[in-house]
């Protein structure tokens, strides 16, 4: 069990890689650390890699949503990457949809998204990836 999750700076963004099962207090610490680092570095993006997490429960889910909200206020976009299929299926069953949290399949995509945002294109929150795609209804 770890005491603290390391936060790395990569260019304009911060990268957090969660490799192990976290105690609640470590998750809370991460939230605090990230907020501080965003302000410190003026980061435009936060990438949270959860590919190492076998379990995401409501506590971690709320933490991710909080981080996304806090970052947004601090003018940085958060992208959560690497969610495992079993975790996604479980979250849906739990009824936890991580509203307001942007997700991507891997770290490369996440950085691409953040770079696109920096260059002016707007990011779309949880929902359609491309605003040209209709999000509801059947086309005949």
């Amino acid at each position, binding site marked *: *069990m770890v005491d603290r999750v390391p936060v790395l700076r990569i260019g304009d963004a911060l990268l957090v890689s969660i490799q192990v*099962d*976290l*105690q*609640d*207090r470590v998750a809370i610490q991460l939230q605090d650390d990230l907020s501080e680092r965003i302000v410190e570095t003026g980061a435009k993006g936060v990438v949270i890699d959860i590919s190492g997490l*076998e*379990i*995401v*429960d*409501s*506590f971690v889910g*709320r933490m991710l949503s909080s981080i996304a909200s806090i970052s947004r206020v601090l003018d940085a976009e958060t992208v959560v990457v690497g969610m*495992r*299929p*079993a*975790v996604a*299926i*479980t979250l849906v*069953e*739990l*009824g*936890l949809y991580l509203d307001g949290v942007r997700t991507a399949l891997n770290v490369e995509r996440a950085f691409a998204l953040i770079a696109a945002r920096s260059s002016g294109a707007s990011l779309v929150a949880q929902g359609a990836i491309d605003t040209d795609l209709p999000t509801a209804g059947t086309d005949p």
Partner: protein
Amino acid sequence: MTLTEVAVEDAEVLLISADDDVVRARQATRAIAAKASLSLVEQTKVVTAASELARNTLIYGGGGQVRVELVRSARRTGVRLQFSDDGPGIKDIDLALTDGYTTGTGLGLGLSGSRRLVDEFDIRSGSESGTVITIVKWGR
């Protein structure tokens, strides 16, 4: 609710009195679930439910314990978890089990969501007697 009659094999009792214990509860559940040959998605669901309920026991029950068991019925093998505490009890169980109900820090979401993750769910709670929640997840 009546739970299926089972034969119990391995049983382990863990005390839940601190943050670290929620992680231990997850790990113990994972170990038994793997031993019961649950699929990856089934394991993820039951470990997630265990995490929710262990945290509830800690935060709302003021601490307690969980009994983790490998159980066998006529046709299947599964995991049974029993969380118990001597806390103030849940005043309105039906309300607490409704989707979207929350006492601010998410007690409701944990309960109703956890119920969807498992196959059998039994809850007994009273202000004098504390709370006992039993869940069972079956493999094939």
